[in-house]
């Protein structure tokens, strides 16, 4: 901080005589992170803010979806021992549970992938490493989401 702003009284009359008035306006301080023509492409949108918001909103919905899922699969009606092809066929006969699983698949995968993106950005310091780790992450995410979606929509209880 310069001596002008810290020690003398640019702030108010209470602390002394102001250096600035209508004829001698205080210097304009540019907002430090203002977007200009020189801002790199990656930071010209609010992507990171929306990603931050998505983590919180999807998290709240996932509490219901995932804990409900665990309750059904591991606790109710005999726990894991009841799970099998016939059990899945019974559940996916209902559009309600299809939509439940579909929402859980998409939200959990996008939430987890975005979380892992943050983790990679934090720890992979070399540009090349970071880039390839994220490509691997995005590939695995797209593959998993598409496979899971396909499985729900094409499930066939009479496969044989």
């Amino acid at each position: 901080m310069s001596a002008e702003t810290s020690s003398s009284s640019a702030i108010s009359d209470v602390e002394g005589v102001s250096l600035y008035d209508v004829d001698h306006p205080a210097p304009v301080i540019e907002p430090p992170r203002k977007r200009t023509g020189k801002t790199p492409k990656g930071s010209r949108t609010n992507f990171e803010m929306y990603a931050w918001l998505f983590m919180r909103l999807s998290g709240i919905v996932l509490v219901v979806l995932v804990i409900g899922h665990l309750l059904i699969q591991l606790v109710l009606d005999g726990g894991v021992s009841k799970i099998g092809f016939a059990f899945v066929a019974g559940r996916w006969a209902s559009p309600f549970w299809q939509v439940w699983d579909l929402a859980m698949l998409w939200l959990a995968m996008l939430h987890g992938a975005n979380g892992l993106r943050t983790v990679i950005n934090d720890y992979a310091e070399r540009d090349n490493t970071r880039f390839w780790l994220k490509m691997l992450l995005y590939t695995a995410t797209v593959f998993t989401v598409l496979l899971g979606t396909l499985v729900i929509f094409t499930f066939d209880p009479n496969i044989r």
Partner: protein
Amino acid sequence: MPAGTLYRGREGMWSWVAHRVTGVLIFFFLFVHVLDTALVRVSPEAYDEVVATYKTPLVALLEYGLVAAILFHALNGLRIVAVDFWAKGPRHQKTMLWTVLGIWIVLMVGALYPVLGHAVREVFGS
């Protein structure tokens, strides 16, 4: 602590570390889980065979660990939301963490019998 680090220790940092570790673990589980569920498109036998491993005592222990990870991540996630959106959240973050851990312990005790009961019966005879 090394010089120049941003880490501050205490409840804030350790809850963040645990949130990160559990989040990554759950993501890796989910990847495998979608693959094993996809076996319903191969054949009922292929699916039932893999699910049979889910019912062994050792994997039951892993399932208990998964439940522990999910429950912590979910409860602490709600705490993070409260810290960010509730005006008094930051001031109560420590109290909320102990509340999270309290609820977590109660739920984990509640999950003992449903998740591990069958494994105990198998190992020690019914």
